[in-house]
């Protein structure tokens, strides 16, 4: 998508992309490319837009049965915003995402810097680091559910009996929170590490040689050569980690089921309880839409802020 596009200035017709015609004007402005994008648009429309329309539909109606519906306007939206447990879950989720970012981004970069750059160990380190990412999310939950148990799990047992600290995630809300947080760090820091590693590998070797000649310290090299180069990948890392942690569901669901009490009831958990557990489709629909919009807005803000600062 570089310059030199409107050289020919020919009028493009809406005819299907005939291969003969596309030849001459590759890399030019060409609205026929829409035909190539069409399958994606159709499939995403089916999987994203139609369901969203249904949600909108639900959110403004009170459904007694499939044939008996009453239009209720924005009532559900008011209720969704008013309910204290919704607001609490929102704050809780935001707090969780913030903590996740604060821990995982620096840790991931540190791991990436420490990873080997050539030789056999590159493959081994990559596979080892990537392994937690490949585990189905509920299995991650299961692993930690067992691992952190005070009676039969290695982690929980060690904390209780070796370190002598009372720790039980099923009873204490702080312990539950810590368990979920540690689990998320364990599960997703590798993503940040891999991204940062990919970024580091793209730095040309002469940069480091020059730094060495100038007698730069390890920290100075990191601060002035590596960190600026990581901006692009860290943008993606922050974006992905924020979004995924903001919609975290499976892992806390498996480990604590949102408990004890509501200590780890994040937005997704609350929402799926409403929608599938109680079939409260109206409030759930309104709540989904608000949730969806929040995510979209935050996503857009993040995206623009981060890409602007990179330029």
């Amino acid at each position: 998508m570089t310059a030199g596009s409107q050289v020919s200035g020919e009028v493009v017709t809406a005819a299907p992309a005939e291969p003969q015609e596309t030849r001459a004007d590759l890399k030019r402005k060409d609205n026929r490319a829409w035909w190539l994008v069409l399958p994606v648009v159709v499939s995403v429309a089916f999987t994203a837009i139609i369901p969203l329309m249904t949600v909108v539909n639900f959110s403004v109606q009170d459904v007694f049965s499939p044939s008996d519906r009453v239009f209720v306007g924005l009532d559900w939206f008011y209720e969704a915003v008013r309910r204290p447990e919704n607001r609490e879950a929102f704050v809780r989720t935001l707090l969780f995402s913030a903590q996740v970012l604060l821990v995982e981004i620096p840790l991931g970069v540190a791991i990436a810097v420490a990873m080997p750059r050539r030789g056999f160990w590159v493959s081994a380190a990559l596979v080892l680091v990537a392994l937690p990412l490949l585990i189905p999310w509920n299995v991650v939950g299961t692993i930690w559910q067992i691992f952190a148990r005070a009676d039969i799990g290695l982690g929980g047992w060690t904390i209780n009996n070796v370190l002598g600290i009372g720790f039980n995630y099923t009873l204490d809300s702080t312990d539950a929170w810590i368990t979920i947080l540690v689990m998320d760090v364990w599960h997703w820091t590798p993503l940040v590490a891999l991204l940062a590693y990919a970024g580091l590998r793209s730095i040309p070797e002469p940069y480091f040689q020059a730094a060495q000649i100038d007698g730069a310290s390890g920290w100075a090299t990191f601060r002035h050569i590596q960190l600026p180069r990581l901006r692009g990948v860290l943008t993606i890392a922050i974006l992905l980690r924020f979004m995924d942690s903001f919609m975290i569901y499976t892992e806390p669901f498996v480990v604590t089921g949102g408990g004890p009490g509501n200590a780890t009831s994040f937005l997704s958990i609350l929402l799926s309880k409403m929608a599938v557990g109680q079939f409260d489709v109206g409030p759930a629909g309104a709540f989904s839409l608000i949730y969806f919009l929040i995510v979209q807005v935050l996503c857009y803000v993040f995206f623009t802020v981060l890409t602007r600062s990179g330029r």
Partner: protein
Amino acid sequence: MLPLLWMFGMSIRPNEDILGSFALIPQRVTFDNYVTFFTDVSWYSSYLNSIIYTSLNAVMSLIVALPAAYAFSRFRFAGDKHLFFWLLTNRMAPPAVFLLPFFQIYQSVGLFDTHLGVAIAHMLFNVPLAVWILEGFMSGIPREIDETAAIDGYSLPRFFVRIFLPMIRSAIGVTLFFCFMFSWVELLIARTITSVDAKPIAATMTRTVSAAGVDWALLATAGVLTIVPGAIVIWFVRNYIAKGFALGRV
């Protein structure tokens, strides 16, 4: 690594030993749990279900995403940037939002509890991802190649299949891997739109948890086995994995 090893340790000891007392090293080693897994139809069939719909999803996502990624990397067209960002936002959409509509729509069009249904539902987040990864890789290939091929008399489809696809082999591998992986690890949607015939392994596992008396050993066994497919696939794409995670943008 430790939690993984611990789970493996649990999977090879009998249940009574796990619940009886805490022990670092298993006293009695048994493979009964694995035998149970592969002989009990509800376990191995859901394992197969998962493999079927993830593979189906990966292939479908790839086919849909290939031309689109090519369009994004080679052409400028009305609304391309907006469309590209819009795709990303779908990757970011919380699955919980889509639960209810998926449930209702799938029941009305007869996709409920089918492999195809889950595969289509997972395209929601895998197609955008595939487009992003492929676009990143494709943009790394010089456009002169397209032009040279065009001068040599290749039509666009022929060029695409004969020359371009072999050149982006690694990208295709990485994309398939990512689609497979994200479909494999997803539970929320898969569980909601299936009941028996296409039930994923992940759902079978949660059912065991909620049942009275938890079979920890069997659960750990299932856990170990669910990691296997991913671990096999990752070995093949290990050299490109980092680039793939960066959505091909490094």
